[in-house]
């Protein structure tokens, strides 16, 4: 089916009972859903489970999908919630909140300073097409603590606002912001160690203006 047929048209045909239209929607979005689930869960088996659950849930709820958002947005939201639900289940938490109430609030005082500072040798546009880049991105993400990773994935990869990220993870906005900063800085550090140009490495002298 040519990609010129918009998702919205396929959705209407699927709603009318056309399986082929639904399968085309699945084929268009399955890689994205799997990738998103993998980034949250860091495990290919769980990512497959969540991909399946998300599409099953799409079959079941298609009739209620009112098309106020795009099909992709609707579907990605379903997948994100399915992935978060699995994380909670893994931890044996029945509560909706992802963490114990005793978790200390992080603050800015403990944010580490950037260490490896250098311009990158290539632009993101060049890097995006390199096979090694995806592995590098996945490895760096895997090294984040889960609490930092979730905030980064929802905010910067999925594009939720700070408020939406906070609501989804049941965290305060202040907490989301500090975790996001930590995640961004840690990923920057990690990627720059590989992508930075050692000949142009800079030393931060902490000067005070």
């Amino acid at each position, binding site marked *: 089916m040519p990609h010129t047929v918009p998702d919205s048209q396929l959705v209407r045909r*699927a*709603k*009318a*009972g056309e*399986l082929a239209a*639904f*399968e085309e929607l*699945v084929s268009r979005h*399955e*890689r*994205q859903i*799997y*990738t998103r689930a993998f980034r949250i869960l860091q495990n*290919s088996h769980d990512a*497959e489970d969540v*991909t*399946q659950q998300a*599409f*099953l849930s799409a*079959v*079941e709820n*298609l*009739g209620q999908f009112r098309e106020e958002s795009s099909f992709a947005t609707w579907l990605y939201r379903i997948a994100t919630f399915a992935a978060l639900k699995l994380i909670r289940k893994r931890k044996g938490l029945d509560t909706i909140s992802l963490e114990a109430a005793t978790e200390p609030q992080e603050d*800015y005082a403990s*944010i580490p*300073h*950037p260490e490896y*500072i250098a*311009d*990158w040798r290539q*632009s*993101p546009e060049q*890097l*995006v*097409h390199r096979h090694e*880049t*995806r592995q590098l*991105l996945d490895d760096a*993400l895997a090294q984040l603590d889960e609490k930092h990773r979730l905030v980064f994935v929802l905010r*910067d*990869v999925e*594009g939720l606002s700070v408020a939406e990220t906070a609501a989804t993870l049941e965290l305060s906005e202040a907490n989301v*912001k500090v975790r*996001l*900063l930590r995640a*961004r*800085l840690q*990923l*920057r550090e990690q*990627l*720059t160690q590989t992508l*930075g140009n050692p000949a142009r490495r*800079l*030393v*931060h*002298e*902490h*000067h*005070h*203006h």
Partner: protein
Amino acid sequence: MKCEELLKLLNEYVDGTVDPAICTEFEQHMAGCNPCQVVVDNIRKTITLYKNGQPCELPVECRDRLHAVLRERWNQAPPAK
């Protein structure tokens, strides 16, 4: 503005939500501090890479299982017309 203060405001600056007066201070600091300038640039590129990164390939067996399960469910209970 000191480098540590800049660090705390990084998110707001990169996301374009920083107060205009603070934004000016932020940029004045960066103009005289090459390392901070590079850190901000690195952060922007880091976010861009994750946003625009290519999705993983779905393993073939996984894709086949997915489509089989969905077809079965569809045939049992197609969406209400």
